């Protein structure tokens, strides 16, 4: 077998096309990756923290607590929020600490658009309490109002003596994605949250002021379209408050903050792979077609009459060469792309810096090389089957590249199925963020490509055994 491998490697190395494919493929893959990230638009200026919510408030001076029981909460959105809040002032964007229930993510303690602490997973009915002591605010939750468990403590420095405390309700936007005919769009669907509170209390008690309702909305920036005032309101019957509201108190760092146009930085850095795919397809097809073009296959099979080991050695050599060239290429592409991204404003808090030592980055970079190797073997198998580059090359390129071009013309569902069912699925190994257009799990995607490769190899072996060379 070692002799066989050495023979196959020598044959591949002697092909003039091999050197061309590998060197051009390597260089263009790195260049294309760099070009894709440098011609992408990223926003260097982050939007200011903004909040939109319904606020039932009253002032509280000095240390104290605000307590309420959330008796019901509508499931308007997994990240709808209903709870108690301590806020620096009544203006949007001011500092805060809030303890809340969410229909999908349990109890959360959040502060200042950056801190998020998870409490228990339970929903309504549930008691919530925020206690201020100087600059530190502690959140407690309870199922009965007597046994309290601490959720966490946050520190808000330089909080004024008098703050606004009370109940709040919010429910963020839903997004719907549509595509077809080459056009893509994001539909925005507002949701309205509703929650009922009772046992609402502020300690120490101060009867001089009552509860006031306010819909907090961001101050409009000049030149920007102002958000229409959405639904929201409060009714009180015998100490039971029904509050409706929309919007969210969130920013980068708060998990409910969702950007529909967020990019997958890691896979964006590796988009040069498309030229690498082409190079590996040519490599695989040529390794097979050259044997038939020159009649070398007869010499090969005369020297090693057993078809199985011959095909296995060919596949191993092509896969090995593709991987050995593909890995430095994808590593270089990733490393070249990172400083470019940084220069273009891709930095925390909007996007974390990514490095090669992270597990998912490593999976994407090594996986890219693995996908290239699998695809080269797929092309080799088709080449052995069809014997001529004029037949195999157009077929493999059509199967691998056309779905990616036709996909965006179809509906989103059809596009996803096209990705799942063609060898293109293997590129899912580059993805590190779940997006609306995510078609398949990274490993499952690589599995689809591997299955195609295995199938093509099996048919090629059958054909090699049963047809004349």
């Amino acid at each position, binding site marked *: 077998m070692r002799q066989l491998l050495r023979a196959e490697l020598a044959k591949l190395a002697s092909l003039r096309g091999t050197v061309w494919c590998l060197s051009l493929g390597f260089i263009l893959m790195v260049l294309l990756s760099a070009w894709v990230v440098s011609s992408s638009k990223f926003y260097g200026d982050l939007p200011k923290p903004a909040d939109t919510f319904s606020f039932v408030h009253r002032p509280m001076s000095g240390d104290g607590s605000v307590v309420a029981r959330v008796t019901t909460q509508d499931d308007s959105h997994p990240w709808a929020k209903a709870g108690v809040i301590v806020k620096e002032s009544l203006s949007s964007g001011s500092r805060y600490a809030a303890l809340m229930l969410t229909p999908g993510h349990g109890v959360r303690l959040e502060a200042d658009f950056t801190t998020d602490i998870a409490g228990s997973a339970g929903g309504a009915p549930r008691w919530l309490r925020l206690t201020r002591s100087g600059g530190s605010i502690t959140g407690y939750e309870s199922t009965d109002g007597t046994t309290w468990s601490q959720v966490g403590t946050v520190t808000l420095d330089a909080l004024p003596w008098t703050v606004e405390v009370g109940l709040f309700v919010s429910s963020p936007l839903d997004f719907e994605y549509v595509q077809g*005919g080459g056009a893509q769009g994001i539909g925005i669907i507002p949701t309205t949250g509703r929650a009922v509170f009772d046992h609402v209390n502020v300690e120490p008690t101060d009867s001089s002021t009552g509860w006031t309702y306010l819909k907090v909305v961001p101050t409009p920036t000049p030149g920007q379209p102002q958000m229409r005032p959405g639904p929201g309101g409060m009714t009180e019957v015998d100490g039971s408050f029904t509050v409706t509201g929309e919007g969210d108190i969130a920013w980068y760092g708060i998990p409910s903050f969702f950007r529909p146009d967020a990019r997958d930085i890691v896979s964006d850095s590796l988009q040069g792979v498309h030229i690498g795919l082409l190079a590996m397809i040519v490599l695989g097809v040529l390794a097979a077609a050259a044997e038939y073009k020159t009649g070398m296959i007869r010499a090969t099979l005369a020297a090693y009459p057993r078809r199985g080991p011959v095909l296995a050695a060919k596949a191993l050599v092509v896969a090995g060469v593709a991987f050995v060239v593909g890995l430095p290429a994808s590593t270089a592409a990733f490393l070249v792309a990172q400083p470019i991204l940084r220069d273009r404003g891709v930095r925390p808090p909007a996007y974390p810096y990514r490095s090669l030592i992270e597990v998912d980055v490593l999976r994407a970079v090594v996986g890219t090389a693995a996908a290239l190797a699998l695809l080269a073997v797929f092309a080799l198998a088709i080449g052995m089957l069809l014997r001529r580059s004029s037949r195999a*090359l157009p077929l493999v390129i059509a199967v691998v590249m056309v779905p990616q071009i036709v996909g965006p*013309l*179809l*509906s989103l569902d*059809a596009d996803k199925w096209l990705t799942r069912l063609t060898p293109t699925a293997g590129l899912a190994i580059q993805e590190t963020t779940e997006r609306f257009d995510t078609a398949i799990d990274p490993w499952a995607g690589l599995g689809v490509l591997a299955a195609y490769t295995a199938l093509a190899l099996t048919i090629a072996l059958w054909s090699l055994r049963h047809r004349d060379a």
Partner: protein
Amino acid sequence: MMRALRMEWTKLRTDPGTRWCALALIAGTLAVSGLADMTTDALDCVPRPCTVDATRISLSGVYLGQIGAIVLAVLAVSREYESPIIRSTLAACPRRDRVLVAKAVVVLAAVAVTAVVALAATLFAARVLLPSRGLWLSLADEPTRRGYFGSVLYLCLVALLGLGVALIVRHTGAAIATTLGLLFVTPIAALFVTDPLWQARIRRYSPMTAGLTPWAGLRVLGAYAAAAVIVGAILFWRRDTVSEG
């Protein structure tokens, strides 16, 4: 000239690859167009009115079908170098300009006739398939006619591009990979480009994306094809007939 034309036509006609390519052009175009027709959903879209372009959907098979046109054109050149027919060709007709013009004429004629048939079939398929998806395609509409004739012209121009590249590289595999790479790689990478300025540049200058937006874009594709053919012709004129590959 008539002799050169007849010679080239005989060679093209008797190469079994030609028939396969023509068949692939028709079948590929119909298959992808049919798939696009059947999976388009204009009945239930969120930002109304729907922005689905019925002509574009029904003619999307060109993305696949063009491979047939390109391979046909590449083979018409590269086959001659792979078997030493090129020597007989030039012995029979030493005027290389005539050989080249005759070759281009018969290749374009074959691609044009096949494209006319293939695209007419896709439009009729769209007439049948699209109404159930909430779209309507009228054959008399200006956009439909423009799309139809633009696509025929597009297929002729990519064939010419393939012919030019094949004259330059004189190797079947290299010519197919270069031409298809030139057409396919930028549009795929462009899916990940988000800067509107660059998106506009790609729409304007990438041969495939530009070529499929009649009519101004066809000129861009025409320029690529012309450049390839001119360089190829100069090399054909000056180089010896022995293939290097």
